[in-house]
């Protein structure tokens, strides 16, 4: 690269530098960082594997949770037991997809009701708050029992004749819609009131200002925390095992009691992890994008 004339002319005796010293220092630092990271990783992993392999009972753990034969049997099913993978997709995944859709809709409704201004809506606001406080306060496992065993026993017609699958979805939806409603509400309140003022000044009604101006911005802003709650929801789907629905956990347990081996749990755990990791990365990516945007909007380009 040709330096502009402001660069000092090469002085005899001083060797010319192809790379400016500052840049060279930076490269050296970068390289040193890589070497240190690699070295430290090797040492830490080495110690961890040594501890895992040398600790008492490590071969028993290996056999109980990680035997290739049992992993395969649990994952794909045997003559005596069902496939954990099949149970995961046919029951658990179906369940949380359904619950997520219901949660999104119900929570949005609750958040909107809670944000309605004016004295007319006072009782509705109170009802929404009571609902949110109530269902946020009940442990999900307890609610599973209340819904899964309570509703069938009460002889309420159709409501009492549903499958465990439906009761599971109801319990998940009740609890998570209370959480997610608060996420939505935080989003709604984060939109500056000048946006509403601008919309109202154009003649839009309160409702239309909310619908077209506030909610679209609020929802965009809360997508990362929403996804985070969905990771929680996906995992909590496993709690329906408690009301007797044969899903992924129960199937894994059945494998364990049949063959005295825990590989089924390993497979089930792996499935949950595999399905939440992409969601976690998407969440990270969305947060990073939102931060970039906010910074750009604030003028730090």
């Amino acid at each position, binding site marked *: 690269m040709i330096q502009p004339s402001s660069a000092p002319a090469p002085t005899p005796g001083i060797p010319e530098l192809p790379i400016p010293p500052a840049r060279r220092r930076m490269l050296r630092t970068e390289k040193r960082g890589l070497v240190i990271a690699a070295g430290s990783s090797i040492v830490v992993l080495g110690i961890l594997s040594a501890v895992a392999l040398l600790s008492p009972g490590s071969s028993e753990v290996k056999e109980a949770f990680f035997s290739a034969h049992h992993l395969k049997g649990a994952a794909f099913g045997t003559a005596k037991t069902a496939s954990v993978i099949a149970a995961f997709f046919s029951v658990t995944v179906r369940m949380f997809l359904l619950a997520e859709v219901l949660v999104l809709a119900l929570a949005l409704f609750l958040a909107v009701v809670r944000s309605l201004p004016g004295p007319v809506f006072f009782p509705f606001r109170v009802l929404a708050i009571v609902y949110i406080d109530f269902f946020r306060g009940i442990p999900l496992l307890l609610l599973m029992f209340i819904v899964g065993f309570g509703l069938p026993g009460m002889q309420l017609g159709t409501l009492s004749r549903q499958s465990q699958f439906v009761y599971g979805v109801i319990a998940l939806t009740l609890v998570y819609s209370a959480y997610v409603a608060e996420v939505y509400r935080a989003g709604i309140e984060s939109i500056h009131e*000048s*946006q509403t*003022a*601008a*919309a*109202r*000044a*154009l*003649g*839009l*009604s309160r409702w*239309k200002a909310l619908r*077209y*101006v506030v909610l*679209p*911005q609020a929802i*965009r802003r809360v997508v990362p925390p929403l996804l985070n709650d969905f990771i929680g929801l996906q995992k909590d789907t496993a709690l329906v095992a408690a009301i007797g629905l044969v899903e992924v956990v129960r199937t894994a347990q059945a494998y364990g009691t049949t063959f005295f081996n825990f590989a089924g749990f390993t497979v089930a755990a792996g499935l949950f992890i595999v399905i939440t990791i992409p969601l976690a990365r998407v969440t990270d990516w969305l947060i990073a994008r939102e931060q970039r*945007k906010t910074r*750009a*909007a604030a003028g730090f380009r």
Partner: protein
Amino acid sequence: MLPSGSNGSHNAQALRLEDVSKSFGDLEVLRAINLEVADHEVICLIGASGSGKSTLLKCINLLEPVDKGRIFVEGEEITAEGVNVNRIRRHIGIVFQAFNLFPHMTVLRNITLAPMKVLNLSRKQAETEAADLLQRFGLLDKKDEYPDRLSGGQQQRAAIVRALAMNPDIMLLDEITSALDPELVAEVLNVIRGLAEIGMTMVIATHEMGFAKDIANRVCFLDAGVILEEGAPEQIFSEPQNARTRGFLQRIIEAGRL
């Protein structure tokens, strides 16, 4: 674009304020304001920050409820009980200091939202009218951009177009150049000059004294919620009667803003 019932005369009354008062808690922001604005008239409100200029504009389009007094727009009392505020606001455009464009919508969507959702125009009709306005204000090539991709001056012009798209009878401008970099002020003020030329009735709160001097039919000096002095710009700026007006203008001149 011309206000309804325009006949070129200054007789018809666009706006009248009678004894309008407004307090925030103990703070009296407006104290018995009386003001009449004729059709096609341009009024500039000047005065220090906190003198009540912005609050006055917000009261006129009912963004702030008045405590006392009455406001009439085109002869109709808008402060009366049971008036549909959404209907009133259609006739009064307001542009804010901070633009307040909707960041999640393109410039075109910003402009067509209210015509479509309030006036129930078809999308096609709203877009045709918006495109005409954007063309006139030199923003047509920005119609598909999001607001954060525009300069401050372009954003403020888009906000003006958004208000104009509702065909308002009166435009209220609330210090619309105060948030702009100095080199962007002129392009926005030129748009307002253009509006004055076609006879738009406007009430303008501004710190741009030079602009007020040459655009206003009448200048009102606000001080502590009272219109202390009003008159033709030549009179207010050359021979202000009130000592406070003189003091205010003196400070403006010292700051090099006049």
